[in-house]
């Protein structure tokens, strides 16, 4: 079985895995990071979205071996030093979730969106999360949550990082 090494939420994790093991199953079942959810088997729903090297990716659509050498941020790694990420705060403030199952993926897609488009229009927000399904909210409060975070701005490190892609990836994975 191939050996992989992935930096997950700032920690280097090494393992021997079956080549066919999906990244999402590696995260959930081997690292017990169960905040990343599985909602479909066709890469549509986005519940499994994580950040790989700072960009959002559906972790059900990538093998763990393909992520070897990358930096992965899951929902568990988004808050820094005990402080919620502005998007987490926005989702809480604006009632951007109900059952919560799509929420981790939705938040990480929104991180990606705000990194590319710090001041998005409502249309840009709706397009930016079109790869993530929510069955509970009708999306309106999610849009409000992302607007809330956009108003507040991403954490300083991430903001600064936006100018240099390399630093952006580092900031998104917790900067470690």
């Amino acid at each position, binding site marked *: 079985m191939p050996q992989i090494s992935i930096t997950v939420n700032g920690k280097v994790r090494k393992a021997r895995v079956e080549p066919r093991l999906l990244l999402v199953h590696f995260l959930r079942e081997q690292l017990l990071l*169960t*905040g990343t959810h599985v909602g479909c088997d*066709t890469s549509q729903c986005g519940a499994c979205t994580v950040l790989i090297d700072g960009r959002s990716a559906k972790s059900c659509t990538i093998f763990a071996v393909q992520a070897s050498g990358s930096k992965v941020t899951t929902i568990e790694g988004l808050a820094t030093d005990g402080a919620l990420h502005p998007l987490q705060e926005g989702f809480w403030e604006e009632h951007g979730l109900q*059952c919560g199952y799509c929420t981790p993926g939705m938040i990480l897609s929104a991180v990606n969106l705000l990194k590319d488009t710090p001041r998005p229009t409502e249309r840009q927000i709706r397009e930016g999360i079109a790869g993530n399904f929510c*069955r509970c909210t009708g999306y309106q*409060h999610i849009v409000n949550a992302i607007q809330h975070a956009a108003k507040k701005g991403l954490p300083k490190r991430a903001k600064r990082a936006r100018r240099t892609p390399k630093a952006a990836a580092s900031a998104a994975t917790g900067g470690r």
Partner: protein
Amino acid sequence: MAAIPVLPKLVGERVKRREDPRLIQGRATYVDDITIAGMKHLVFKRSDIAHGRIRSIDTTAAEAMDGVDAVFTGAEIAEFLPPMPIGTPFPSPPHHSVAVDVVRYVGDPVAVVVARDRYAAKDAADAIVVEYDALPAVVDLERAMTGQPAVIHADFPNNLAVALVPGGTGVDGAMNVDDTAVDKAFAEADVVISQRMMNHRLVPNAIEPRGVVAHYEPGKESMTIWSSTQNPHILRSMIAALNGLGQHQVRAIAPEVGGGFGSKINIYGEDYVASAISKRLGEPVKWIEERSEAFVATTHGRDILGYVELAAKQDGTVLGLRLRLIADIGAYNMLLTAAIPTLTMLMVSGTYRIPAIRATITEVFTNKTPTDAYRGAGRPEATYFVERAMDMLASKLNMDPAELRRRNFIQPAEFPFATQMGAVYDSGDYDKALTAALKLADWDRLKAERDAAKAEGRLVGLGLAMYVEVCGLGPSSSLPTGGWEHSQVTIERDGRISATTGASPHGQGNETTFAQMLADQFGVPIEHVTILHGDTGVVKQGIGTFGSRSQAVGGAALHMAGGKVKTKMARFAAAMLEAHEDDLVFENGTIAVKGAPASGKSFADVAAFAYVPVPLPAGLEPGLSEEAFFEPSNNTYPFGCHISMLEIDRETGEPTLLKLVAVDDAGNLINPMIVEGQIHGGLAQGIGQAMVEEAVYGDDGQLLTGSFMDYAIPRATDFPRFELGATVTPTPVNPLGAKGVGEAGTLGSTPCIVAAAVDALSGFGVTHIDMMLRPEKLWRIIQGGQS
């Protein structure tokens, strides 16, 4: 004494949800997040044909595979697991959790693998070889009723699960039918509308698929079962019954549940099989549904055909309604399958005083996934049929659709109002909701905008729909499980409050709303209140969360239990203060004589005294913990008005929703923010049905829309910003005056959008379009064909 901080009243406020911190940080525990040492994984082998006799099942290759513990066929499972029970009094064919001899829909399980992990289990399931003798697939609903092309269950000729049950005017308790009044209404009518309408099949698709972990511990002779369910107490009863255990031996837990929308009310074959296999092997087992399985293995919703006839006077006064309902219930009766269309029948009077109604219901087996509750469960269908007919009538009479409805409303002074269908509406002010919606939408301006757009050649239309639904289910006479809800409120020794509720939430936010209520009731900070739910080992009794009942019934039980413990606590406080208990007020964390807050005792001190009561006040037992069962005297009947504006692209037929206005009356609201979220979600599903969602079966019984690639879940880009308004008409049937709101959004939105599409295409002579509004269908109308 230091100044006492004043606590704000929380009921009616937009309190942030207490569930959210764990959910936004990935710290919640859904069923797939549960791991038990030694746990095995189950994967089901499912039929890939719609109808056939099982000739052989070869499991030898699967059993020989690495990591595989066991493989059970349906026949083997049947040796230790009885067929599944249903929850309705209708006759039902035997339904094995895993099929024996005959498969009856694509997705019907035929065998189950027990293995070390899900990968090994799935490999083994793929290695099982099943041979079938195919039988003709019964797909077309009306053909199925003639017994063609096959009879699915031998004891149900012509595939009729329920045959032509009548209801309405002139039907007595013995089902004798007198048509005189209905026939007279139609004979006297100036106008009669007649239309066949299909309320098509939907796939609920909670984003968390189903899942179960079952752990039978032989040494303890007890079973713990975690399932993604809306009703752990019903799960417990059923799991106990089918495993030959007492209910005291089964603990059922609904952990974090990722949405349900009715589809997680059922106790499914997989729940039974997991529990039975765990009991047989003495090992914990887990089964997690994949999405492609969920499409066929979790119950579907809707799929009711209606033949609607509406009789009216020239001035718009409705005289009578005839409605022949035919439901395609799929291959089997599930828990509530047979009862769902009866809710359609119950609600066909809508918000109108219709003096003569004849409705009949026929339920038909087909080789499809069984149907059952899906958000709204029978009421959106009723609303759709009646509202579409009202629109057609308005159009025929050349009347404004709002004006026609106003002319026929049940008036506020007429409540409680008994409809011809036997529903007794609790309270209502329909004109108020209509007027509020027209004002919020600026109806006259919208009409001018539509007319201007049409003058430019654009295809823009407006739609309006009223709805009334039956919620807060319900008196025990209306539910086979009992219709009450249970709560226990405990004031802990430190003055903190733990309360249980049998209304097990899956996104509804009860941990917040119920805590708001208790914080106000006891005058303590909300941080001092915890709401416990979803675990029959903690919550003594319960029914569950469905039918928009958790606030109206569960909230009422909580309020009652809180009241009981408050009464007792007041007696302890009275003893401490040497005051009369009736003179005490609970506020700002103290219990004090009214008008003398400084002389009061802290809430925590009184709690401590109640647990070490020296001396024990006469007539009291120590402790502060009381429970209540709330039995509502009636259902609740929330209502509202939804308005939409829609544009159809003339070149492509693609519809775009431009505006959606919803005014909903759910009675008193505990947390308006949460209520808005519930309405938004309901609207999304109602709009989804009208515009993008449809379960389509091929002639061979294959589900053609069996993944998210073919079945469209609405995306954020599909919706405009919803505009909400509210009117408040409390219900008298519970002490909170709350009616329930979980399903409301699915009722008015769907017909008002179809109405808008018909309005947009009125120039093409179309008076009705069956959902969903597929661009191709609309394009054909524009090209001169009919829908």
